[in-house]
């Protein structure tokens, strides 16, 4: 190999490394840029904190109110995770049933769609009537809102098993439950994890809606109280805390996804292709 070729290969490798480093830093750079620009705009136009607080005001407020902020965040995190866990269990069970039986699919799908189109904020007062003010309305709202994407995705994964593969297994004497277990469920996993990433973020929406409509505890109540006192920096502190919790749970879901269903994302890594007949 000539020196020129070597130099060119080195340069290409270095460029690829720079690209990777840049990609890793990009989210932080964007956040930093947003915060600085926000601060600059607020200061430059002299916007009062009551309309739009600067990031420094929000930070000061978060430091001052850290104790209730932490307590309420943990409360919201708890109700969200309980609602989300119920949604995962219920969603997988119903998804398997709908995906593996055309009869159940026909029967339940219209009802599910109708139910999903109801704004959940309208259901919260009912939940309060049934369960009283407390954490249950928040848990159930988180469950109701995050349940649907899981059902749809699991059902899709199971219902789209290739007919030929089904034939191969049926010809061997496989029962429908074998086909779901050996093929349907593993096949549905990428769909399932994709839905988890959506479900976990909307679960937060659910519990915060319930906390705002029926204020008892949690970040939703904190923001309602803060806004009724016109403490806008604290409202923003609550919003940003929620966003951070959402991102963290999204990362966890993504980490598990990559560990368990790497086979479905092979194009993301260097493909180890072996030529031959």
């Amino acid at each position, binding site marked *: 190999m000539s020196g020129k070729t070597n130099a060119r290969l080195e340069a290409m490798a270095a460029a690829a490394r720079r690209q990777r480093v840049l990609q890793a830093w990009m989210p932080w750079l964007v956040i930093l840029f947003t915060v600085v620009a926000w601060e600059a705009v607020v200061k430059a136009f002299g916007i009062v904190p009551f309309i739009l607080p600067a990031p420094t005001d929000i930070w000061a407020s978060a430091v001052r109110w850290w104790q209730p902020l932490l307590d309420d965040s943990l409360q919201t995190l708890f109700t969200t995770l309980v609602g989300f866990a119920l949604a995962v269990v219920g969603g997988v069970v119903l998804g398997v049933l709908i995906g593996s039986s055309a009869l159940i699919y026909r029967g339940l799908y219209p009802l599910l769609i109708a139910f999903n189109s109801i704004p959940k904020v309208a259901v919260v007062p009912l939940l309060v009537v049934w369960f009283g003010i407390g954490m249950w309305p928040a848990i159930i709202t988180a469950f109701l809102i995050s349940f649907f994407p899981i059902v749809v995705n699991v059902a899709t994964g199971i219902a789209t098993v290739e007919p030929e593969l089904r034939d191969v297994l049926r010809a061997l*004497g496989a029962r429908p439950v074998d086909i779901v277990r050996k093929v349907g469920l593993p096949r549905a996993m990428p769909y399932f994890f994709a839905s988890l990433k959506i479900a976990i973020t909307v679960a937060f929406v659910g519990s915060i809606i319930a906390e705002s409509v029926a204020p008892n505890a949690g970040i939703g109540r904190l923001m309602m109280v803060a806004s009724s006192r016109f403490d806008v920096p604290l409202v923003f502190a609550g919003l940003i805390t929620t966003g951070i919790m959402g991102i963290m749970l999204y990362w966890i879901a993504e980490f598990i996804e990559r560990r368990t269903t790497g086979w479905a994302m092979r194009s993301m890594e260097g493909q180890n292709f072996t030529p031959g007949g």
Partner: protein
Amino acid sequence: MSHAFVEIDNVAMRYGGVEGTLALEGCSLSVQEGEFVAVVGPSGCGKSTLMRLVSGLWPATDGNVVVAGREVDGPLSLVGMAFQNPTLLPWRRILDNVMLPLEVVPAHRARLRRERLAYEKKARELLRLVGLEGFDAKFPYQLSGGMQQRTSLCRALIHEPPLLMLDEPFSALDVFTREDLWDVLQDVWMARRPTVVLVTHDLREAAYLADRVLVMSSRPGRIIAERRVDFPRPRRMETTFLPEFTALVAELRANIAAARRGEEVA
């Protein structure tokens, strides 16, 4: 015809009720134990339907299907199948893909846990037989199309089915890979001697591999011609250059052309 392994007698198959499509009608054929039979015909003639009837995936609307002396009334665990698509499970390594039938067939699933090592050895031997030695820990996407089809063939064979049903298994492959796999299939057949029914639209493939070639009419399908193929085995690529081979393919082609026009052939 006392030792027929597969006996199809005057079978009809109609899809979608009384007014539905008639895929097969008056279709009769028999396959001897250990025989290699190819079924060719114009496209849409019901070849794949025939295959599903024999495997017990669908019941025939008329007539009898008897396999291994038993009337077929449901899926038989004694059939191995392979299709045009390899349909491997992308989350399983090659070895685990090959072993999938063992987890399903009632006779094997009970023994699999205790005798896992012995079964794995069997699977590796099969992989060696089709030229995939050392690939057992790879994932399907790491293999080329031809190698995936070889794996699919191993999966069809792992439970040692006495009957192998192949539905255009090589038609999605390029010519060179396909001809390699003809030899692979011939070697496997000569080593194990299963009864094989190969559905194909490639006349050279049928003439190269089969002991007997059956020609189907266009829909509703039935067998309208039959040719014995007597070239000595193992057949090699040189066989396909023989004038007799060319003549056989030409004759089959003429039969199919006639079938497409709807004529009777002798």
